[in-house]
């Protein structure tokens, strides 16, 4: 039999899977960093479990890997793609995405730009294939 604790645990876990952008407390660079790291570590299928509205959030987008965006392009319904196009059409949001990628790079040390490169390529990928992202 499930107890109250186990139900709360279940809600916590499913909340984190579906809405990581609302699950890391107060909005700040630490929570953005945590959200991006969470998304980055996910499997392709698990990325699509994020609610479509999450793809309009910088920290979620900043955590997308190359394999994720390829998976999104091939399998995500149009509402996901629309959110991404909406996000990338806002310059301030794009700047924020790069800021979060820079935070992730700072963790790596050695003046690494790996995450910033990743984000740049992902944005370029969306631009190159806007035919499948724009409805």
């Amino acid at each position: 039999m499930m107890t109250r604790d186990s139900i709360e645990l279940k809600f916590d876990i499913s909340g984190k899977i579906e809405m990581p952008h609302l699950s890391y407390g107060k909005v700040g660079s630490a929570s953005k960093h945590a959200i991006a790291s969470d998304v980055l570590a996910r499997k392709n299928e698990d990325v699509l479990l994020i609610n479509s509205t999450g793809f309009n959030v910088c920290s979620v987008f900043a955590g997308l890997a190359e394999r994720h965006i390829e998976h999104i392009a091939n399998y995500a319904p149009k509402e996901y793609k629309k959110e991404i196009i909406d996000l990338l059409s806002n310059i301030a949001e794009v700047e924020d995405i790069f800021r979060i990628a820079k935070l992730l790079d700072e963790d790596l040390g050695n003046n690494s730009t790996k995450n910033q490169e990743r984000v740049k390529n992902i944005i370029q990928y969306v631009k190159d294939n806007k035919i499948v992202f724009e409805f």
Partner: protein
Amino acid sequence: MAVIYPDENYNYGFQPQKADDLAYGLENEKKAVAEATEEIKKDLLARWKKRYADAEIFPPKLAGTNPEVVEFMLSFKHTLFYNKLAGNLGLDRNQRDNLPQIVWEIVIGKNWRDAEQIIAGGLGLDGKKAGTIADFLFANILDQAKILSEKPFVPRRRIAAEEKTETKLIAVRFSQSLKQYPSLGEQLITSGPLRLRVFPAPARPSIKNWIADYHENAGAGSHGVIDRGNYLFHTENTRRLTDGERQRVGYIIKALDEDAVVTINQEKGEIVFQANEFRKRTVNEPNRPPAKMETVNNESGAGNQKRESAVREPITEENLKFSSPHTFPAEKRSEKAVFQPRTESRPVPRPAPSFQPFARTIQSSRPNLYRITPINQPGPETSPRGNNSKNDPKTKGNVVDLRN
């Protein structure tokens, strides 16, 4: 006054946990969370797939393109290739960004022959540079895309439609269905959470929980219509249901009580509520013999009673009967008109009805007294004495001469 201080060395019955025990507990908890996470992910993924089963993934302009081509074109390595090509051939930012759009245009339109012209026109380049870019593009992308586009394919929409028709609906008894499809118990049939006595927290409105609630309120075992009606309208959980939700709950508890046949979507492992009634009427009835003899289960305890319901024949004048044994004039008339004593066992062929004007039938059955004849054509019955009598009034047209 003496003050009693707690003995610092006394442990009040608590045994301090060792560091190893704590680590073991933490490890176990982590393991439990990881297992729960996997389980929840599976559940969410199944729901996601169900929700987006018919979702639009690509815009309509790609409907005529082979899905394999689209998948190939969406490879991330192409973005890196365009970056490299633009760097090597000195394309500016705009040209770099336009190049993939031009490639998509060539692929969708299958303009392999005109690729060089399209590239030259699209990027504003001379023929030589456009030729070089075209060579690189064919070597890395376009040749492969051309091969894939020549493959026969089924448009995405049609694939989805075919997959949909393949979903099998089966009719199974309710008790059997729960055994065969354990996931059925988890199917949510209403929206709000349930409050169960045995369970302190709000419970999911699943079939399993609704059955638990039904048994809590109405008791275990099967119940009649009245019990079900009372449950459906007068318990804490059912009071707030919408009509549709109440119908679904009612359907489930009826199926539970009567172990009725339910329709199940095999693929989803769910009860199909909308098709239930339809299947009852269209699938089960043809297998049942036409209503010859029905057994009526007398719930009042008077025992079972067999009622023979006559097989219905088309109603004709011959078999027209009223429910009462009393013979009505209409029946008498039909007997007189049609009935002929049958002396032989084989059916006597009925003579074909000959056309008789309705007025003549009335004439023969009514007394002459009521007969109306035209004034200027007096019939023999107008006067019992006849027209030649001296005292009879003479008529001429509509004028009656009473003088004679």
